[in-house]
């Protein structure tokens, strides 16, 4: 017997208006990719020798994987801290993670200047073990595989309910086999993000004098780790509210409140670590200089601490406040990441950078295809736990209409037990 309510395919049309819009956005990104391989990176981007990663690494890799870290943080709660009640959130989070990490990986391939040399990566003797980026690359590639393996049970469950006896036997047999191996796969799914999320932060340590002292710290790996946990939990809250709104997905109020409390602690931990580190390194003087960096720093801190305030007080019970706060937690982590990789990185007086339309449309297109894949998979496979009468509405239309507060308010009214 299983106490957990079972996830179900959402069903519904695969190609509705929202989906077409998303695919169109991705189509533009495809164009950018093709032109990039013909004419070079400089032809589609404003990247230059000073800002060599433009927005693609900071956003498509560092921020996307932070958003995808819900798979990691919910997994930690559910499996390591043995909070079985989190189980219904695992599959949607893992799917977001699998998609976000795949997009990050794909974006790197597009951003690499000489991707045809990548086959060398398959030869461990050639690895430069000192390279922080190598560690990120290997670890992320492994983790993408692990995440999709974690999604396999959804596909096998679907096969098991198939009307074709062979499919259903196949689904049941392999579903059971995979279930036995799962603890070992989940353990990898806990280890790998711990490693590469901290390494992602560690990437910028070597940049030394080029990164502003308020961001350059030996604590970068730890901060990146804590921020990904907070971003991940925030994403899951936002996602749950959206799915509730669009698909009448199950929405466990107590659980979300509990998760937000954990997140509140993480956000405070992040802010505390940062301030303590600045104090320990004697960098508080930089906070006395009224410049651009101070504004960015204060904005970051506000985005971290405001949701913490909501999460750790009674306001967390209000689903509108909770939604906005969760969004702020994601934005906080994203902003800190972009700042550490781009905004507060200074390549020198002779360089400046602002993303080109090509770069922006690539980033937007990648995000769009991510949303599209999420919708398609949840429509086809049992990922989301829904109430008995699903409301057919498209999450894409919801995303595009972009009225989250209103939606959160409505979902709040519905969740009161």
């Amino acid at each position, binding site marked *: 017997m299983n106490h957990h309510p079972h996830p179900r395919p959402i069903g519904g049309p695969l190609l509705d208006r929202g989906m077409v819009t998303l695919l169109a956005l991705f189509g533009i990104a495809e164009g950018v990719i093709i032109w990039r391989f013909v004419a070079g990176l400089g032809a589609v981007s404003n990247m230059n020798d000073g800002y060599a990663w433009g927005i693609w690494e900071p956003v498509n890799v560092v921020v996307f994987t932070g958003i995808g870290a819900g798979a990691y943080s919910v997994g930690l709660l559910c499996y*390591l801290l043995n909070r079985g009640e989190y189980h219904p959130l695992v599959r949607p989070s893992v799917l977001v993670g699998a998609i976000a990490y795949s997009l990050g990986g794909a974006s*790197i391939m597009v951003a690499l200047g000489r991707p045809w040399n990548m086959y060398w990566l398959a030869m461990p003797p050639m690895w*430069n073990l000192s390279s922080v*980026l190598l560690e990120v690359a290997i670890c992320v590639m492994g983790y993408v595989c692990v995440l999709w393996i974690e999604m396999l049970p959804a596909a096998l469950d679907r096969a098991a309910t198939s009307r074709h006896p062979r499919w259903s036997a196949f689904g049941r047999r392999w579903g059971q086999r995979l279930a036995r191996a799962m603890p070992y796969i989940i353990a990898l799914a806990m280890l790998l993000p711990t490693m590469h999320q901290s390494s992602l932060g560690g990437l910028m340590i*070597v940049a030394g004098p080029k990164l502003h002292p308020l961001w350059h710290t030996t604590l970068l790996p730890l901060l990146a*780790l804590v921020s990904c946990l907070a971003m991940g939990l925030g994403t899951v809250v936002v996602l749950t509210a959206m799915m509730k709104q669009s698909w009448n997905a199950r929405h466990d109020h*107590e659980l979300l409140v509990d998760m937000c409390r*954990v997140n509140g602690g993480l956000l405070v931990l992040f802010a505390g670590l940062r301030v303590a580190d600045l104090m320990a390194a004697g960098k508080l003087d930089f906070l006395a200089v009224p410049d651009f960096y101070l504004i960015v720093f204060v904005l970051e801190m506000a985005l971290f601490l405001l949701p913490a305030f909501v999460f750790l007080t009674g306001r967390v019970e209000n689903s509108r406040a909770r939604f906005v706060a969760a969004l702020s937690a994601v934005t906080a982590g994203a902003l800190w990441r972009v700042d550490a990789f781009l905004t507060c990185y200074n390549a020198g007086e002779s360089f400046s950078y602002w993303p080109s339309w090509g770069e922006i449309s690539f980033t937007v297109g990648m995000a769009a295809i991510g949303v599209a894949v999420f919708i398609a998979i949840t429509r086809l496979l049992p990922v989301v736990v829904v109430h008995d009468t699903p409301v057919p509405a498209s999450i894409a239309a919801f995303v595009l209409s972009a009225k989250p507060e209103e939606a959160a308010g409505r979902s709040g009214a519905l969740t009161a037990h």
Partner: protein
Amino acid sequence: MALTISRRALFGVAVAATAAALPSRAEARPRVVAEPDAVGLLYDSTRCIGCGGCVAACKESNGVPWDGEPTELDCTTRNVVKTRNLRQPSAAGASTAFVKRQCMHCVDPSCVSACMLGALHKQGNSKRVPGEPKGTGIVVWDPDLCLGCRYCEIACAFSIPKFEWLAANPRIVKCELCRHRADPTHDGPLSVANPACAEVCPAEAVVFGRRADLLAEAWRRISAEPGRYEPRVYGESDGGGTQSLYLAAAGVSFQDLGLPDMPSESPASLSESVSHAPYLHGLTPIALYAGAAAIIRRNRRRAEDESAHHGEDSK
């Protein structure tokens, strides 16, 4: 109830975080020192007349057509001479100074630390190209191992590596100390490299040689004319030391010449000790994995037992 467990969760996170942070500074990587026969350049800003001869010679010797005096390094310019405005006039009253910029051939280079497969490496350390001369310390680039990730551009504090932004098969371009002009008929430094920039300089502002000899020469110049020079050789220990060394006129700060202010610990050493120390040579990941797997299995078995019980109860 919910709150207590959240606190426990937080506590767990905090413990894990501290555990990850603690060893990070404890296990610093040993300091890399220059090899005895490492070669490099000595650039003397006080002698430079800004003629740009070295810039033209650099392009020519690297097979790049001349397309006008460059102002910055780029994918066709491995060497540039800039006229810098000084925030503080020099002791001699000059308000500008020349500076030549090219790869510093760092003793412990950030770019080498960053590069995933060792495309950028110290000559002789390649795992792909056997038989490179050893001990020169020249930082060279191997097109076959480069993925074009440009982490070297992010990592290099001197912003030296350049990328061919408009090429379908882009290269990383930087000074490789004219190792292709090495003359095996000579002994000593010329047998491994022969920088065109040093060869053409009419003022002995650019000198090529063993780093140790260049350092001695730099200090000899400083002590021979103490009023002329800033009493410091940039690159002796800055950023962990570099093989391209700089002399500035008295009263001129190296930062005014555009050279970054760096501690004597190299960024590579800082980065590697922070990033690798928590791994304890691979022990930590293995322990974490084993621990996680054990906990997950135990939790699952408990959940199964529990649901079995429920099953019996309901019968």
